[in-house]
């Protein structure tokens, strides 16, 4: 039984020390306001053998939150480890700040995608900006130089007034932060759907590069080693919830509630990056951790938990921006642009010197001990004494109930095949034009032109190419490619298949540019885990993704879960965003998407079936979502990728573009507009023109083949059993489908490029 209010809570201006907590076991504590469940509070008392102090309660409450502890999701996420395919390239797997992959020549690459959804709805600019800042620090903490960012985004209906507020703010925030850091933005996604109204998704990905020997891990070992906090001063940002505690234990002269939103300082982060890389070069750190969610609580407990000993921290040495902060607030503060390093005593001076060089504030705040406790002091008095693992790694685990929703059958039965189709070539033409100009299919240049894609001078491919590609070695031309994909409509129709389709698409995109897919990171955006239907979607999607990763041989190296993306009863479409990283030995061999040479032959690779469920056509023309998503054939995806990679390496193709939303015709529109060249097409025998153009069958791509390479290319496809159909030729300045319609490129361009500026410009 929990003690009820037998004794008075600590009076104002009394520091709630460990000693005080021991002496006042019955004091009332606001555990419920802090989001803890009764049994969780009881477990904390059991772990400590007494009631927690205010500071301890603050730490447990935030570290055991859904966001930090993954309590609803971890029983499902563990499949990513259990089903992980054998993969020699994986150097660091799930569990660290980000996974690390071997890409050859002594290089390792780390990448991860994370969400900053809710803050971006409240304050679009700062929410998105600090999302970029956070993921960049994760990558930096692995020892890598960040080399590129990407931004998968979801917004409400394109014409909804609030989208006009959220989208420009988010885009300006991502650009404002990333541009100022000097990280090229090489890709991302922008999808509109009314289901994201009130719950926009702002996911951010960062890629970093290092040499194998530079990999750093987040752990504190070696008694006597110093704990150094460096970067920005700590202020009252992002501690909204914890002010409950502060107001109970301290005087009430300060604002009742601290803001939950943080403001980023990309300039400070740029200094932090350069300073940290210089520190790495001189091998000055034994362990390192970025400060993100849960601030110092998270950094100190994770470092100590992963290390061998304990840790002692003098909290009053933390440099503050606001001297009125309470110790609880300092522990919780999510002030941006901070890092925490473990440094051997004889290296501390040099460490501080480098920080000074870069105008970065650095302070020794504690040291690693040979004990087993995390101990935190405030002006000499102990306010925290906990086993760090209990805070960081042994939080609660929920087995939330899940059940296939009743409406799922009806949704799947509502087949898109029954929707009225265009009756003739004219109608087909009108629908092609409409699709090309629909918000989801339209050019995103208005957005991506606000991102610097050239900085660092290594960008080989960037949006709107199928994947972003950066060179990582100037001598050998070794490079990496990354693509992110996710289709909430498919996933709503069938979460298992939808997640696999997201992976398949990202995998295909990487291969389309000529890179070999190696590894996966994912951001799982879902509604409330307390809804069994949502939990079922989550369970199915993770199972689908884990199974598919196993088949494709691409391990999940890390990622992020974002739950509670819902307004009232209405959850967003289940939206797993999957990022695939690939390697290319020689970036001069990359394959762009543009049709650039008249006379080249256009081949369609893969099989086209009648698959319209969840398609862009069904959405744009009929505002319909129903039926089943396209089938997944992972073996076919693998074969297609092999062909695309071989053809690129051996110079058999000059352009390739993967087929996804909008089907063949959308891919053709994009390749034509990108290269400023038209194409003349013939509908293959036995295919309905409408199905040929609009079906979204997976496992397909189009390629442009120089005539001199045609035989070699078709022989290769034939020998390996990949269907390759010659569908036309690059030619003229219109998209012509013989016997159906002709669409001048200029008309297409106007439709394709005018939409987004017209909506939000």
């Amino acid at each position, binding site marked *: 039984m929990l003690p009820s209010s037998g004794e008075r809570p600590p009076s104002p201006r009394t520091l709630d020390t460990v000693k005080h907590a021991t002496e006042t076991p019955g004091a009332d504590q606001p555990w419920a306001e802090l989001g803890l469940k009764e049994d969780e509070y009881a477990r904390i008392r059991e772990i400590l053998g007494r009631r927690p102090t205010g500071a301890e309660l603050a730490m447990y409450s935030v570290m055991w939150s859904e966001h930090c502890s993954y309590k609803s999701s971890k029983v499902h996420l563990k499949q990513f480890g259990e089903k992980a395919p054998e993969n020699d390239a994986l150097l660091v797997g799930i569990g660290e700040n980000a996974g690390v992959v071997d890409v050859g020549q002594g290089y390792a690459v780390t990448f991860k995608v994370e969400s900053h959804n809710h803050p971006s709805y409240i304050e679009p600019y700062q929410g998105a900006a600090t999302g970029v800042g956070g993921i960049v620090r994760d990558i930096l903490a692995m020892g890598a130089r960040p080399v590129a960012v990407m931004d998968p985004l979801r917004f409400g209906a394109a014409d909804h007034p609030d989208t006009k507020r959220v989208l420009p703010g988010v885009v300006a925030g991502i650009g404002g932060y990333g541009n100022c850091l000097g990280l090229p933005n090489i890709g991302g996604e922008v999808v509109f759907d009314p289901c994201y109204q009130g719950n926009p998704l702002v996911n951010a990905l960062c890629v970093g590069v290092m040499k194998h020997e530079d990999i750093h891990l987040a752990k504190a070992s070696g008694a006597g080693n110093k704990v150094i906090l460096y970067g920005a001063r700590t202020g009252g*940002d992002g501690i909204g919830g914890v002010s409950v505690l502060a107001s109970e234990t301290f005087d009430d002269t300060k604002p009742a509630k601290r803001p939950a939103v943080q*403001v980023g300082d990309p300039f400070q982060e740029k200094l932090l990056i350069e300073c940290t890389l210089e520190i790495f070069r001189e091998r000055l750190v034994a362990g390192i951790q970025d400060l993100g969610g849960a601030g110092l609580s998270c950094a100190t407990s994770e470092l100590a938990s992963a290390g061998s000993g304990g840790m002692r921290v003098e909290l009053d040495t933390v440099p503050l921006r606001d001297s009125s902060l309470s110790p609880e607030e300092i522990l919780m503060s999510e002030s941006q642009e901070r890092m925490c390093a473990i440094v051997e005593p004889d290296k501390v001076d040099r460490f501080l010197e480098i920080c000074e060089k870069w105008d970065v504030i650095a302070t020794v705040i504690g040291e690693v001990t040979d004990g087993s406790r995390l101990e935190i002091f405030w002006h000499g008095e102990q306010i925290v004494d906990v086993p760090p693992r209990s805070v960081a790694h042994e939080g609660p685990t929920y087995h939330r109930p899940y059940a296939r929703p009743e409406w799922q059958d009806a949704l799947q039965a509502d087949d898109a095949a029954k929707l009225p189709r265009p009756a003739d070539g004219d109608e087909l033409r009108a629908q092609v034009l409409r699709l090309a100009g629909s918000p989801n299919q339209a050019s995103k240049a208005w957005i991506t032109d606000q991102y610097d894609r050239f900085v660092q001078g290594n960008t080989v491919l960037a949006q709107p190419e199928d994947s972003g590609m950066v060179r990582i070695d100037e001598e050998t031309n070794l490079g990496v490619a990354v693509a992110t994909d996710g289709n909430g409509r498919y996933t709503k129709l069938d979460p298992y298949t939808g997640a696999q389709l997201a992976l398949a698409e990202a995998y295909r995109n990487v291969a389309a540019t000529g890179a070999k897919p190696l590894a996966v990171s994912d951001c799982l955006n879902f509604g409330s885990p307390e809804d069994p239907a949502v939990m079922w979607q989550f369970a199915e999607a993770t199972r689908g993704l884990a199974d598919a990763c196993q088949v494709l041989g691409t391990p999940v190296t890390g990622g992020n879960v974002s739950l509670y993306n819902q307004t009232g009863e209405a959850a967003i479409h289940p939206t797993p965003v999957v990022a695939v990283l690939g390697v290319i030995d020689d970036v001069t061999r990359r394959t762009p998407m543009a049709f650039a040479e008249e006379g080249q032959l256009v081949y369609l690779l893969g099989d086209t079936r009648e698959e319209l469920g969840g398609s862009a056509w069904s959405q744009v023309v009929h505002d319909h979502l129903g039926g089943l998503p396209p089938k997944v054939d992972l073996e076919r995806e693998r074969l297609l990728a092999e062909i695309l990679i071989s053809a690129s390496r051996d110079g058999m193709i000059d352009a390739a573009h993967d087929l996804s939303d909008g089907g063949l015709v959308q891919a053709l529109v994009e390749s034509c507009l990108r290269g400023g060249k038209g194409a003349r097409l013939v509908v293959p025998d036995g295919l309905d023109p409408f199905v040929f153009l609009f079906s979204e069958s997976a496992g397909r791509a189009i390629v442009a083949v120089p005539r001199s390479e045609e035989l070699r290319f078709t022989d290769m496809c034939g020998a390996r059993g990949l269907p390759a159909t010659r569908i036309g030729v690059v030619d003229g300045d219109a998209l012509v489908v013989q016997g159906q319609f002709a669409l001048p490129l200029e008309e297409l361009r106007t439709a394709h490029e005018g939409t987004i500026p017209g909506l939000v410009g």
Partner: protein
Amino acid sequence: MARVVVDVMLKPEILDPQGQAVQRALPRLGFEGIADVRQGKRFELEVEGPLDEAALARIHEMAGTFLANTVIEDFTVRVDDAVRAES
């Protein structure tokens, strides 16, 4: 025509990187003795029609919903007839 000035400043507890950068630069330029700098925005609105209670109330509302994001910013509204030019 009346001029109304809306000043928008970040809330005191919110990080102000711009103000900080200015403050840190001052000693280097030989200006000592500035303990803190905050940088905000100043809007000068030229208002048509009478500046009565109702008009001011509307401007207040506009400032609170549009010119400032009150999640992170505070604002003040005041009627101003001072002349601006200087230097």
